[in-house]
């Protein structure tokens, strides 16, 4: 697997709190993408961070990439109930498709 061994993680938080999720990857990549999947829907990209970027922001989202430790994080500030979803990190693999991590299930309660 491209990704470190992990189970699907689950986080439950209250609206307004901040949340950070992490993932690590095994092989070199130039791009890490973060996707969100809401119940009954396909994944949708949130943010893409390249190997020459340490941090990338988009609205309430902040992604970091540490190529030396081969890890990435996604933070959401001021969570809303609508942020409830599964969040995946993904890298581009040799086959030009994406290799996804198992994801973090985030439940935001009002």
């Amino acid at each position: 697997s491209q990704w470190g061994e992990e189970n699907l993680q689950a986080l439950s938080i209250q609206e307004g709190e901040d949340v950070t999720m992490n993932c690590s990857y095994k092989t070199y990549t130039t791009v890490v993408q973060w996707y969100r999947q809401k119940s009954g829907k396909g994944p949708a990209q949130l943010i893409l961070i390249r190997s020459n970027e340490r941090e990338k922001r988009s609205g309430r989202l902040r992604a970091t990439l540490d190529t030396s430790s081969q890890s990435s994080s996604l933070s959401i500030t001021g969570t809303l109930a609508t942020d409830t979803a599964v969040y995946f990190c993904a890298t581009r693999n040799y086959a030009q498709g994406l290799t996804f991590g198992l994801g973090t299930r985030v439940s935001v309660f009002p």
Partner: protein
Amino acid sequence: EAAVTQSPRNKVTVTGGNVTLSCRQTNSHNYMYWYRQDTGHGLRLIHYSYGAGNLQIGDVPDGYKATRTTQEDFFLLLELASPSQTSLYFCASSEDSAEQFFGPGTRLTVL
């Protein structure tokens, strides 16, 4: 307007059955992909294509065929369906191999 559509949305078949899953994209993207999503495994790439008539194997291609008939249409074929192919299938498209746009998924049950 949804840019990636899949049909059917749900399908039940029996072991040994013949199933075709359809995907159409209106993004004018060159790349199209088929993934399956299973608990404990996440999303895994089955096949992908970078243009009409082209087909590339992904990470879990066994038991699956695919055809890309036009730039818009990509089909996944299960000619002898098995219970292990019970899964949620997603199609996606991309301009290159960066951001991918996913369809709503097809839930397949093989009895």
